[in-house]
Each structure stands twice: as structure tokens, then as C-alpha cells.
């Protein structure tokens, strides 16, 4: 093994699959799937009679159809469910038109709003989704229907991929970034740029001038929170407010963001990364239920 391959992958977040222990496959009437092929992660959610039956969440590969396939297989693993039994499948996310098993596609904007409505509850009115390479602020109604939305423009600073690069740069496992960013004596000023290239330069400079790694993490999380806030500010927040996507798991960014916003985000037991795929599967369920499924 070369030194390069032995190198620890600090950016790597935890892939996971799950099966609902309270649901029995043989009881299910309508089974639908939603597959969200994002720029960084892919999820498949299986919905049985309107409830989440199983899901898989993993890293996106270089090929969208293959990523969709892998995510679906991961979700189906050990569930006893065979793909043929799925009544309808909707693809979403960046690679939505390249999901081979999908019957149709719907944008991740619509799917995240619908998914958040399910995993957080129908009170949610503003959804912030911070994904691998984009950030969306979505306003929705009590059914999870989009009423307005904004996306980051041109640059992917302040998104998940930026955080991955940063975790690698500072050799801090990405899952520890949040906690460690609060293990500091005093909150530092944010780094002046969330541009990944510049932030690296700035972080390297700070480390050289004697900053602790945790302080640099805090400064970067804080800068990301500010950047995300500028997007939310443009759309205006109506409570209740919920966060989806991988960044929802990083409290270094999220707690700082909530402090700037002066409110509390809703809480959920669900994996926040599955919101898009869940929304897609739920749309699929509704279509089948109304006889608008596969012909």
C-alpha cells in the first residue's frame, strides 16, 4: 500500500441503511421507492403504505445510474423485499434523469419540501437543505408543497463538499467537526472567505500563527453559517424551520446558524439526508394510491 492509499479519509461520513422494525413486508399493499442521486450522496427510501419501510444512504459514485442502483440495493438489503415488488419509483436529485428504475422524475426542491413535511411534520414552513454542492431555502405549505425557493448561485462554498475538504485539510473526522468546533475557550471571528481554496489558505495561515485546530474549525463553521444565513435571509423565514441534508448533522454550523437566526430548528429522529428520497417515495405513494401509478 502506498502512503497515499493508507491516508485516513477524514471527509468520510457514515453510510447507513435501516429497516423499520415495526413494519411487516407481508402486510404492505402499496410499495414505492424514491431515489435521490445527489452530487455527493445518494439515498433510496422505500415507502410502504405511506410509511418509511427502509432506506439506504451512501456516497455517490462517478456514475449516476450505478449510484442509484447501489443506493436501492443498500436500502433493500436484508429487508426480504425484491425490487420487482415496487409499484412506482421516482428519481430526484442532481442525477434524477439518470435513475434507470425510475418511472418519472421530480426535482429535489419539491421532494425535499415533501420529505421535510413527513420527517419533521406538517408544521414545517421553511426548509433549509444543505447538500453536497448546493444549498436551498424552500418555503412550503402544510402539505409540503413548495411556495417559493432559492438556491445558491454559481459557487458551492458553504455546502457539504466544502466541509469535507476542510475536514481533510485539518485531519479531523467530519463527524467530529461539530463537537470539536465548540471545544474552544472563546468563539473566534469567522474566516473571511468560505471559498474552499481561499479558506484553506486562510486556515493554514491561522494554524501557522498559533491557532488551535478547534478554533480554526469554529471560525470555518461560523463563516459557513453566515453564508447559509444570507440565503435564508433573502427568502425570509416563516416558522417552523427545519433543516435537511448532510449539513443538518453538523452542529458546528447549525448551532451557530440558529444563534444568528435567533430561533430553534425542528428536531427529528430521522436521518436528515433521506428527506429528498423520502419525498420522492411519498409522491410515488400518492400517485399509486390515486390510480396514477404505472400503467
Amino acid at each position: 500500500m502506498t502512503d497515499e492509499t493508507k491516508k485516513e479519509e477524514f471527509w468520510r461520513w457514515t453510510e447507513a441503511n435501516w429497516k423499520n422494525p415495526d413494519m411487516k413486508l407481508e402486510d404492505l399493499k402499496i410499495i414505492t421507492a424514491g431515489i435521490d442521486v445527489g452530487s455527493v450522496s445518494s439515498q433510496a427510501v422505500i415507502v410502504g403504505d405511506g410509511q418509511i419501510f427502509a432506506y439506504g444512504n451512501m456516497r455517490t459514485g462517478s456514475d449516476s445510474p450505478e449510484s442509484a442502483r447501489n443506493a436501492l440495493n443498500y436500502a433493500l438489503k436484508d429487508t426480504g423485499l425484491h425490487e420487482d415488488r415496487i409499484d412506482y419509483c421516482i428519481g430526484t436529485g442532481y442525477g434524477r434523469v439518470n435513475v434507470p428504475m425510475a418511472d418519472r422524475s421530480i426535482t429535489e426542491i419539491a421532494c425535499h419540501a415533501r420529505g421535510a413535511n413527513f420527517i419533521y411534520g406538517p408544521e414545517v414552513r421553511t426548509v433549509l437543505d444543505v447538500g453536497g454542492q448546493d444549498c436551498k431555502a424552500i418555503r412550503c405549505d402544510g402539505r409540503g408543497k413548495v411556495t417559493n425557493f432559492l438556491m445558491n448561485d454559481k459557487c458551492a462554498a458553504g455546502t457539504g463538499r466544502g466541509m469535507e475538504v476542510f475536514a481533510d485539510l485539518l485531519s479531523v473526522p467530519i463527524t467530529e467537526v461539530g463537537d470539536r468546533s465548540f471545544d474552544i475557550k472563546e468563539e473566534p471571528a469567522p474566516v473571511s472567505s468560505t471559498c474552499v481554496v481561499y479558506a484553506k489558505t486562510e486556515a493554514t495561515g491561522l494554524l501557522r500563527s498559533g491557532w488551535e485546530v478547534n478554533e480554526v474549525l469554529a471560525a470555518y463553521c461560523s463563516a459557513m453559517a453566515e453564508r447559509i444565513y444570507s440565503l435564508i435571509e433573502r427568502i425570509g423565514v416563516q416558522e417552523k424551520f427545519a433543516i435537511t441534508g448532510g449539513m443538518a448533522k453538523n452542529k458546528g454550523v447549525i448551532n451557530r446558524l440558529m444563534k444568528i437566526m435567533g430561533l430553534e430548528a425542528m428536531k427529528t429522529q430521522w436521518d436528515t439526508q433521506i428527506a429528498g428520497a423520502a419525498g420522492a417515495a411519498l409522491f410515488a405513494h400518492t400517485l399509486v394510491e390515486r390510480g396514477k401509478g404505472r400503467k
Partner: protein
Amino acid sequence: MIEQFKQWYDKRHVYAREWKERNGGKIVGFFCTYAPEEIFYAFDVLPVRVLGSHEPQDVTEPHIFGMFCPFCRDVLAQGLKGRYDYLDGIMIAQSCLHLRQAFTSWEIHKNPGWSYFLPMPNHVQSKRAIPFLKEEYKLLIEKLEELTGKKITDDDLRRGIKIMNRARQVMKDIYEFRKREAPPITGAESMYMTCAQFFTHATEFAEVAEKVLVELETRKLDRDPGKRIMLVGSENDDIEYINMIEHLGEQESVGCTLVVEDHCTTTRYFWDLVDESIDDPLDAIATRYVNRTACPTKDWPQRTRLKRILELAKDFNVDGAIIVQQKFCDPHETDIPFIRKFLEENDIPTYFLEFDVTVPAGPFAIRTEAFLEQLGMEDDLF
């Protein structure tokens, strides 16, 4: 027949060079649609608008600020790269400072030997705007006499008016077809047409456009029109974007047709005709340019454009409007919050996109599609 306009758009310089060879006439490039083309036609000079090429370029950095709009930089790039080197003159009618800087820089570095700045009044809502502009036109005429060595009569001006009005009227007639439930012409095709007006002689344009008008009577497009979209905003000839959104329906579950626009490359340019019943032709021309649908650089203190935008939105039965802005275009940026609020109050949903020389296809596709979903998400899904 309709393909002709794409050809003219794509091969604008070939057309101009050939026109010059055929007619031995002079060609003047103009920078803004406030240029009174009637007067140029009265002199038998061919006016062509300078538009950008939507290609990344590296020649304007030393000449124009990075925070000036991408359109004016793209325009200047065309000049600096010599793509309009067949021009006998360049002129601008005052509109915005960004474009004027592009003009001035072109004047300094690539002056074809004749250049003219027409002080088109900004305060078009003033009663003095028309007499002021008329006097300015007289100075322009003197300058054009120098260029051509000709004198013109009122009849020449009336001829110029007729040439321009004919092209305008046929475009308006073409737009009538876009009101149909299934428009027989796509937004992209229509944009090729409206922009081809800038690069061709108005008479030659009108002759072909009138044939298209006949064709449209029976033309049927093999596509689902989907949602009816309006584009509103700054200079825009990003046909690639329009093509992309009009093809969304082939892959995605929502599609759309662009049915009308408020751009200076489309309706703001041709919608208003010169009133031929006004006796003095210069009065008539000045009246037309002062009263035409205003560019936001001139649309104050009253925002008169709002009324026109709403009329178009209603007449063309639009489902939603995409508001586009050239990055850093301050005049449009100032108007956008008012336009969006006004349209939303009138039950026309809006979405905003910021355009550059090139636009990011992936993210813009997602955003446009999500807007289309928002307009027409079947209630079956909820």
C-alpha cells in the same frame, strides 16, 4: 422558412458583409435600441445592433470594469476582436453607463472613422423630451450627411418610418400566434426572429417574416406546450437557455413554452410603431422613441413598464414569469422587486435568475424546473 432567422442570427457577419457587397452601402453598428433606425434607413445606411456572442473572452479586462454587466463586456469583446470590422460607423443612444463605456472604449480602440453619441433623454416622462430629441435628431442627421455625403428629405424619413413599421407590424402579427393554446412557434424560434431584426435589412427581414406568418396559420408543433412562460428583464438573447427550458418536458415531467417576453431584444424593441399620421416625420420618430416601452434607465419617476408587462402577461395568458437580469445590471436590478411584487399581486408567480455571458445549464435547469413544478404540481401529488 423559419430556419432563415436562425441562419441570420448565427451568421450575422456573413449577412452584413454580403449586404455591403451587394448594395455598396454603409453599415452603422448601434449599441442600444434607442437608436432611431428610421433615420439611418432614410440615408440608405444599414443599422445593425451589436450583440454579444455568449463566449468567454479575455480581451476586455484592461478596458472595462469587472463589475460592469457581462453584456456590455461581451459587446466590447466583439469590437476588440474585430468581428464587426465591416462597420463604417458606430453609434449609441444614451441608455446606461455600462454600455456607454463599452461604446467609448470601442471608439478609442477600434474607431471605424465615424462614431456618434446621441443624447437620448433619460427623462422621457418630461414634456420637453420630444422637442429635445427632435433637435438632437437634426444633429444626428448632419453627422450622417458627413458619413454618406447625402442630404435627405422628409420623404426619405417617411420611407425610413415605413421600412421600420413594416418589420415591427409583422413581428407583432407573429406574436399573435404565440397567444394560441398550442403556439405554432417556440420561444426559441421567436427569439431567433426578433434578434435577426438587428442583423438584417428591415425590408428583407419583413419579406421573409411575412411568409412565415402565412406558414404559421397551418403549422403544428409536435410537442406538449406545457406551462406558458414569460421572460422579463434586461438584454437577453440567451437562446441556449430558452432551448433548454423548452426541452425540459422531453425528459422531465414538467415542460414549458416561452410565449412572450419583455426584453430589449424582443417586445421593448418592436412593439411600438411610429405614428404615421403625425405630419412631421422627425416629430413622429421622436414621439415613438420617447413613448416606447421604456428601458428601466428611463422609466422614472413613474414605472410605466409595469402596466405593459401585465398587459402582455394577460394577453398571452402566462402561467408564470421568469425575471432575468444581466449580472450587475443596476437599472433592472432596481426595478425587479417592484416587478415581482406587482406581478405576484396580479396572481402571476415569478422566479428570478441572474444571467451571465454563459449560464450554468445544470443548476438553471433544476431551478426552472422546480419553478414549473411550483406552477403546475398536480394536486394528485398531494
